[in-house]
């Protein structure tokens, strides 16, 4: 009979295998999604031919001296429309799910999400200023909404930093301030909506539904690189998050974790991940709240595994929701934020009811 230590090692390996399977499934889903769309000339087979044709990479990365470049209309659809969209979906899922897991752990509250701290509300306020009042930090019209959303969300990040420098700040205080910011920003946005034109209202509403097709391929790659660079930093806090999530500040201190500074730093990174992504995509909720919980049902609350599992689960959810949204009633595209709530909500409820009374 195996010892307790051996069983612990085996359990850990099983969890890692689960994460690997989930990762492979996510990439398989992404590949499959590339083959789905409203173009009748672009079926799954021809899409796969285009994807695995090395000549296409030379077009994307402009190395046509190495390989011949073939940019027919089908290739352009695949690489300039579908690929950035799906890649952005994965990046969005990774960023928001990771941010959600981090926030739930360091605040010790399972109900928080990346939208809780007020970052999303700040971004929405910035977008509203650009759309309704035509006020932007950057004079380039194409980038006005993105720049405003990002910079206004950075203002919220700055508030979080200031809060974190107060020695007496508690986890609950962050949540309450986030709620306050959400109400204040929401009130200002509502006021602007009241005086906006129909066209501006429509544009603001579409921004708030969320969309993965706004950033082009180059922007998508840059966003992806930033998120990838932030992920290793996040892993450093895995043990700290285990203690903070389990027993709060006193328990953390007794285990060698300094809660105030650690919480502040984790929340700053979470807020940055969130603001980078939603500045481009608009408001995409649900995944930041649900993906960590779904991951916990699979592998428990050890953050060394919860972080990668949440990230992969988040990517899967967003890509899946977006794919269903753009194919179910093609050529009508249902925004990803709406599809996530429609599909994810009942599925999440089902998982919770199944898990009631069972150990994981």
């Amino acid at each position, binding site marked *: 009979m195996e*010892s*307790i*230590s051996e*069983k*612990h*090692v085996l*359990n850990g390996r099983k969890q890692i295998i689960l994460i690997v399977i989930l990762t492979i499934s996510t990439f398989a889903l992404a590949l499959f999604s590339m083959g789905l769309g409203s173009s009748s000339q672009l079926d799954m087979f021809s899409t796969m031919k285009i994807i695995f044709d090395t000549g296409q990479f030379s077009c994307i990365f402009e190395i046509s001296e190495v390989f011949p470049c073939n940019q027919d209309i089908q290739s352009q659809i695949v690489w300039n429309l579908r690929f950035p969209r799906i890649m952005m979906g994965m990046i969005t899922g990774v960023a928001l799910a990771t941010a959600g897991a981090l926030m*739930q*752990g360091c605040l*010790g*509250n*399972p109900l928080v999400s990346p939208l809780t701290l007020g970052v999303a509300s700040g971004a929405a306020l910035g977008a509203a200023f650009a759309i309704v009042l035509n006020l932007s930090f950057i004079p380039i019209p194409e980038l006005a909404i993105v720049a405003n959303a990002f910079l206004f969300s950075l203002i919220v990040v700055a508030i979080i930093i200031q809060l974190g420098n107060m020695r007496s700040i508690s986890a609950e205080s962050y949540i309450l301030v986030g709620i306050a910011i959400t109400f204040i920003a929401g009130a200002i946005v509502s006021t602007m909506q009241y005086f906006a034109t129909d066209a501006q209202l429509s544009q603001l509403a579409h921004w708030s539904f969320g969309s993965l097709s706004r950033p082009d391929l180059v922007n998508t790659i840059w966003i992806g690189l930033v998120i990838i660079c932030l992920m290793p930093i996040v892993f450093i806090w*895995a*043990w700290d998050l*285990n*203690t903070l*999530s*389990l*027993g*709060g*500040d*006193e*328990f953390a*201190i*007794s*285990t*060698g*974790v*300094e809660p105030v500074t650690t919480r502040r730093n984790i929340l700053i990174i979470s807020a940055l991940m969130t603001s980078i992504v939603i500045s481009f995509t608009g408001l995409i909720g649900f995944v930041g709240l649900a993906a960590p919980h779904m991951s*916990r049902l699979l592998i*428990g*609350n*050890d953050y*060394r595994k919860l972080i990668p599992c949440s990230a992969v689960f988040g990517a899967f959810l967003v890509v899946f929701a977006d794919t269903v949204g753009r194919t179910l009633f093609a050529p009508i595209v249902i925004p990803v934020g709406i599809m996530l709530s429609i599909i994810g909500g009942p599925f999440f409820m089902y998982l919770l009811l199944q898990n009631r009374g069972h*150990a*994981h």
Partner: protein
Amino acid sequence: MSDVLKVSNLSFSWSDNPVLENIEFSCKWGELIAILGVNGAGKSTLLKCMNKILQPQTGNIEVESKNIDDFSIIELSKSISYVPQSVMTNFSMDVFDVVLLGRRPHISWRISDEDRDKVSKTLQLFDLEDFAFRRFDRLSGGERQRVIIAKAVAQNPSLFLFDEPTSDLDLRNQIEVMKRIRDLVDDKNERKSALVAVHDINLACRFADRILLLHEGKVKAFDTPESVLNEKNIAEVFGVTCTILSATDESPMRVLVGDEIKFHSTSIIKQEE
């Protein structure tokens, strides 16, 4: 041999409300000190000042002959482990992983076989092997308390701070846990000491080497149970009458609590004298 803990002139207050005033005591290596006092006497506050959860306004605290201010939080956690009264959580882990958290001050990232073995042995010590892969949040209050104590032991500190470790336990488990703490302290190979805040005077009599009796935020007495626990001190601090049964070969010293003293106050006790 130097003390594992030395506290002098320690005072703590919440805003303008003094909680502790001029606390002075020390703890030797291999000693178990019980902290007694009524609710609000400052027992938990005193323990929290020992490991930087609370910052006293004045005072000097030395841990292993080094000023506590010279320790970082992670370094201090290698010397001191604090067990709170209760741990309420919105999340959960397996019991094994909770106890493994006690190894956090000693782990950089990967868990070694030594860490796992330490956790396994600790689970065996507290009869928790069958609970190893059960969820922590699905245990009873008493079972969770034993797990948190096990986590503190896995942390391998020099000094344990237990804040009412028996509060959620049944009578049998109260004695079992205090026996385990006593065994830890008595193990000459390990060099451990413990400060234990308790409400049960008789547990303190039975297991403590010395008793720190707090009254209105000050040290009323600090000595052996026989010296500290007399009818006068118990009446003044707890406002009850009692009968002291001295220790015999068969049984430890016991305090039989009588009745509450009506209109209990220090001035009335002095008047009666």
